[in-house]
């Protein structure tokens, strides 16, 4: 009975393993995408943008833009349009954000290529437009990296637990098989069979059952992975595509390894279990 259940239980474990692997790879991919985009983003908010700058004839917004465009570590400085700012504010102020009589600052997006925080730049900007805020995405990037790191660690933990549970399932099934064939094993042992003769027979069968179960479990996970990939596509900056290219290449390499690893776990666990059991025999 336990032996018959082995492929089913290993299939369930492999299903979880496939999801955990996909989760880990997705977290790594999204972390790369997000940290690359947010880590270099520079956002500058200029309050009262149409007022005169502290010196010169330009408005505060024009003066700030001029400094940014001339700065060494800043590129692609661009003032967001009113519609773009309203879109950004919508989550907090609703669809009518643009119609509210609120003093909305002008927002400039740019790319920061400097190594550290833009402290000198802040000083220069505040000299022409006091109250101007300049922030890079480094802090957010660090948070995103920490979050995805935690997700990856969780995925690795899940894989470890799944492997342990699979080993426990195979150990129980092997013990059941040994109990069922006890008399036969004792006779063969008495006739001069080596421990390896007996352990190899169990191990080959356990490896085959585990590989078969893992193949079923991994195949069953594929539709779910395609569905999750479609859901995640907008976050990863990848256009929704169909077919094999919907999943990352690394996943196509990792998924076939699941049955191989399951077979290895089955073979090793069975060898250890049988050899330990045979030690009871003189």
């Amino acid at each position: 009975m336990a032996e018959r259940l082995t492929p089913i239980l290993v299939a369930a474990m492999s299903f979880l393993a496939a999801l955990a692997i996909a989760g880990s790879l997705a977290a790594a991919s999204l972390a790369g995408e997000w940290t690359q985009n947010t880590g270099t983003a520079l956002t500058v908010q200029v309050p009262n943008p149409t007022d005169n700058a502290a010196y010169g004839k330009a408005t505060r917004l024009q003066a700030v833009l001029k400094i940014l465009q001339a700065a060494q570590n800043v590129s692609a400085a661009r003032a967001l349009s009113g519609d773009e700012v309203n879109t950004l504010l919508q989550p907090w102020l609703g669809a009518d954000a643009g119609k509210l009589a609120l003093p909305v600052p002008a927002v400039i997006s740019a790319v920061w290529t400097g190594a550290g925080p833009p402290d000198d730049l802040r000083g220069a900007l505040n000299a022409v437009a006091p109250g101007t805020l300049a922030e890079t995405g480094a802090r957010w990037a660090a948070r995103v990296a920490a979050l995805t790191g935690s997700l990856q660690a969780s995925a690795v933990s899940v894989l470890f637990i799944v492997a342990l549970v699979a080993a426990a399932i195979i150990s129980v099934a092997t013990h059941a098989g040994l109990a069922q064939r006890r008399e036969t094993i004792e006779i063969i042992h008495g006739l001069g069979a080596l421990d390896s003769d007996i352990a190899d027979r169990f191990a080959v069968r356990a490896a085959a059952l585990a590989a078969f179960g893992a193949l079923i479990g991994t195949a069953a996970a594929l539709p779910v992975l395609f569905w999750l990939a479609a859901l995640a596509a907008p976050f990863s900056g990848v256009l929704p595509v169909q077919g094999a290219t919907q999943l990352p290449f690394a996943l196509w390499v990792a998924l076939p390894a699941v049955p191989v690893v399951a077979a290895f776990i089955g073979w090793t666990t069975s060898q250890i279990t049988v050899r330990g059991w045979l030690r009871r025999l003189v």
Partner: protein
Amino acid sequence: MVRFDHVWLKYRREGEASLALSPDVIMDMSFAIPEGGFRWLTGASGAGKTSVLKLMYLAEHPTQGRIELLGTNAARVSRREAAMLRRRIGVVYQDFRLLGHLSAYDNVALPMRLARKSEGQVRADVTELLRWVGLSGKLERRPAELSGGEQQRIAIARAVVGRPKLLLADEPTGNLDEEQAERLMALITGLNGMGTTVVVATHNLSLVERYPAPRMEIAAGRLVTDG
């Protein structure tokens, strides 16, 4: 050569702590059987004959004392060496110990296959031996389809198919008619004549009288007669 040197045996009790042991079943037993020797092992039921045989085919380790089998100290062998030693020992068990899911042919072939003999050699030896014990027409029968006597003959064939250096038999004629018992004894004495050391446990004293040989008598776990 088989040598027991002050051997004691207690059984470990199944399912209990590893230190839970039975009372002594073999006590201070010492004897030596020379290479190519023949010994009857006699005694009442429960005297310890089967336990002595178990020690000889390495199914048990002595609680105390030293056992030498075919020139090897049985206590000092690795598991692999013990398996190799077992391949040189043929055993006819009292309860036959045949594998029910295998045919008569495959049961007899088992020791040769474990020793990685070629299938050609297995076929030749097993077929010849089964013909000799009168079962050539029942090669494919499973043990459950055979009588007790036929099963015993398969067990005997299996014990001798590997041309063992030491042949141990526990009540080998118990389920055989007189003619089969005579044929078996002819086989055993023939093997003994070719240099195989033989120990036969029996309580059939008429058999012992028909085939005179040194006799070891056991009573209550002790060797009371040797010679």
